[in-house]
């Protein structure tokens, strides 16, 4: 049974980044400042740069202290942003309503306990067979509930517990690609009538030395001197991790109409791919995805999720300039930092808000980004993962909200 394809609308946004809390706060700031200033922690993680969390009153979205205690920052951030999105979509905190909402979360893993890890390393030093000591130390020192704060699927679990979203619950893993697949899957299910309304998004907590260690092993971190994403050049490139919680409420148009919800924008197509990370192949995959969107270079805002690695960022930027020379191009990682599982939905959140408010985004980087030529009526959001996975989607402006 092929149902009539449903329009997929964005009816709620929950966005937290170093710039602030809530989509309105972000748009206010971008509407007010001629050259928005990123918020960057330069000391605590030197020589690296991290876009930190703003001050957050967790209780506003996670009322029970007991729930807060069960989570580390990553899960709290996601649960908080999910709550913002549900509230923004004006979905009542009524269990019968929320029990019918689907959910796809893009998640990595949770925080380790750095003090315990340091203790294990100290005790293991010099031992030829350290395993018995490691076992004893971990068994005695790890908090029993820390595991629950680490498990990837427990962000979704916490959202179910705190916000009562239980229609379905799926957690996608895999860095930037997880966010791309989450949006693509949620949208495809709604378009095909398999779902009516879906909470989709992710969270990334950047202020974690355990993660910075991984990224430094990979040689991916920007260091010593911060520059905007498009200004990062070979030898002085890399990403600056950014704490972001970004959730969207995606909804079938008729479902939104039935409950009188207004939408930010229409999600007109989401595509993801992967393959060898070299110039020709990467460019060809991006080009093929752009072909599938049928997007025209007209009142177009491009929010590029480029990570700041000089090569892939350069390939993407050149292709987009070639295809859409008139478009306003912004690298949103300049302001948010790079947010992995949450990166794609953060770009979509910003694009949807910008379209809805009919905002002309100021350049995020005066050297590399041009002033906007008027209000955009459609937006292209891209995310080229730092090492694997690429995706993009198109948003179209609606009547307004």
């Amino acid at each position, binding site marked *: 049974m092929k149902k009539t394809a449903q329009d997929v609308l964005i009816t709620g946004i929950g966005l937290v980044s170093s710039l602030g809390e809530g989509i309105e706060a972000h748009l206010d700031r971008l509407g007010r400042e001629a050259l928005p200033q990123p918020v960057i922690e330069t000391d605590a993680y030197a020589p690296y740069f991290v876009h930190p969390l703003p001050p957050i009153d967790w209780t506003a979205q996670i009322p029970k202290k007991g729930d807060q205690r069960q989570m580390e920052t990553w899960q709290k951030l996601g649960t908080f942003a999910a709550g913002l999105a549900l509230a923004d979509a004006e979905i009542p905190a009524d269990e019968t309503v929320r029990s019918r909402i689907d959910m796809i979360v893009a998640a*990595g893993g949770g925080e380790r306990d750095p003090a315990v890890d340091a203790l294990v*390393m100290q005790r293991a030093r010099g031992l030829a067979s350290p*395993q018995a000591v490691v076992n004893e130390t*971990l*068994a005695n020192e*790890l908090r029993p509930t820390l595991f629950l704060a680490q498990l990837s699927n427990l962000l979704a679990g916490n959202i179910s517990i705190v916000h009562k979203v239980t229609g379905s619950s799926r957690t996608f893993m895999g860095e930037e690609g997880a966010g791309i697949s989450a949006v693509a*899957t949620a949208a495809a299910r709604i378009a095909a009538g398999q779902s009516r309304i879906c909470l989709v998004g992710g969270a990334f907590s950047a202020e974690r030395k355990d993660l910075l260690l991984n990224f430094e092993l*990979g040689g991916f971190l920007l260091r010593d001197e911060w520059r905007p994403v498009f200004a990062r050049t070979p030898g002085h490139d890399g990403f600056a991790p950014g704490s972001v919680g970004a959730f969207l409420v995606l909804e079938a148009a008729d479902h939104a109409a039935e409950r009188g919800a207004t939408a930010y924008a229409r999600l007109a197509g989401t595509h993801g791919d992967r393959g060898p990370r070299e110039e020709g192949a990467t460019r060809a995959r991006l080009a093929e995805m752009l072909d599938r969107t049928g997007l025209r270079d007209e009142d177009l805002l491009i929010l590029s999720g480029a990570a700041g690695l000089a090569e892939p960022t350069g390939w993407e930027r050149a292709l987009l300039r070639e295809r859409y020379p008139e478009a306003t191009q912004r690298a949103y990682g300049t302001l948010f930092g790079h947010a992995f599982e949450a990166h794609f939905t953060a770009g979509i959140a910003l694009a949807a808000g910008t379209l809805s408010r009919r905002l002309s985004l100021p350049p995020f980087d005066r050297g590399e980004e041009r002033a906007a030529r008027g209000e955009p009526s459609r937006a292209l959001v891209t995310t080229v993962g730092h090492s694997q996975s690429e995706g993009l989607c198109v948003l179209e402006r609606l009547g307004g909200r």
Partner: protein
Amino acid sequence: MSTDTDFLGRPLVAITGIGVVSSLGRGVEANWDALTAGRSGIHAITRFSTENLRTTIAGTVDFMPVEPLTSSDLSHALAEAAGLEALAMAGTKAGAFGGPLFLAAPPIELEWQHRFALDRADGAIDEPGYDRLLEIARRNHSADIYALTLFNRISERLADRFGTRGLPVTLSTACASGATAIQLGVEAIRRGDCERAIAIGTDGSVTPEALIRFSLLSALSTQNDEPAKASKPFSRDRDGFVMAEGAGALVLESLASARARGAEVLAVLAGCGEKADDFHRTRSKPDASPIIATIRAGLDDAGLDAGAIDYINAHGTSTPENDRMEFTGLSAVFGDRLAETPISSNKSMIGHTLTAAGAIEAVFSVLTLRTGVLPPTINYANPDPAIPLDTVPNTARRQPVRAVLSNSFGFGGQNVSLVIAAPPQ
């Protein structure tokens, strides 16, 4: 010939290939022989020192050639072996599969062996901890170690090996993950996004820290003395699950496509049901309502009522909580019929393969349908009188089966039930 669509007019989803690896062996045949003979794959752990651990047994897979051993590499090797078997059975070519990949994989992170290796390097502040490791890493980049921390690394490698299409989905719904991977494949085929998909669940993550984490939540059996007898689902003296490794893979395909290319249809994935629990991070809602809703949704999606289910492949973890809640949920849906519906737990023999369990148990459900043999629940010597069930105790049973219900309930509240049925005549 019957129609290619289901009772709602959706494309019927055929299973045309299966593959499996568990502690019982590699491949469908070795596993099915052992499973129907009531053999256990649980043993004392030899992979690492278990000194100071409360649980010293597991269903580790120790026969895969993975060197050096990491959770990412072992999980990959298991998934690849199961996937290649399923692709070969389906008569599709590895390297040119052409459909999407849905992979249930365990969360991974930097391993202790790598932290220790870094900590042994010189020339950084002496104080142990991440500041020191960062300082060392700055001069010792390692793309290989970094790759082991990437959650999408396994699916990337499989995508290249199998020739799958598009961006693979790597997912976790904890102990329901394998079933969720199948569900995603079924939905994609029903939408018409693809003609075929491969769903895999894999888990090769038995490490000391993983055991300790589950131990700290009192989830694991500590009946170490007789490893093969520790996993005893539905028994009165059950005291927790036994961690295990393995992988299961299924090639899913629209029935129309399978018929058009003359592929043998092993079974039909008739229904998927899902419902999340909002009660607690490790416990089910006391009234079992999410489990009940999950099972009902699976049956409804298949267009069947409970009376059409001939056999239940239980989640049956052997924890006091799970087995009681599964019974409560099934009782509500099946009513009096439950007493006469055989139900067994593969976990009594292979242990709890966590992320892989839903996929492995779906593979065994297909084999149950195909062969008319119900694998037993072994170690059922001391029935729990509070959960009276026909558990197919200790010995396999011959019985024709037309439809199987396979349950998977995840830590963190994610529940999935699958209905797998014989191919339409």
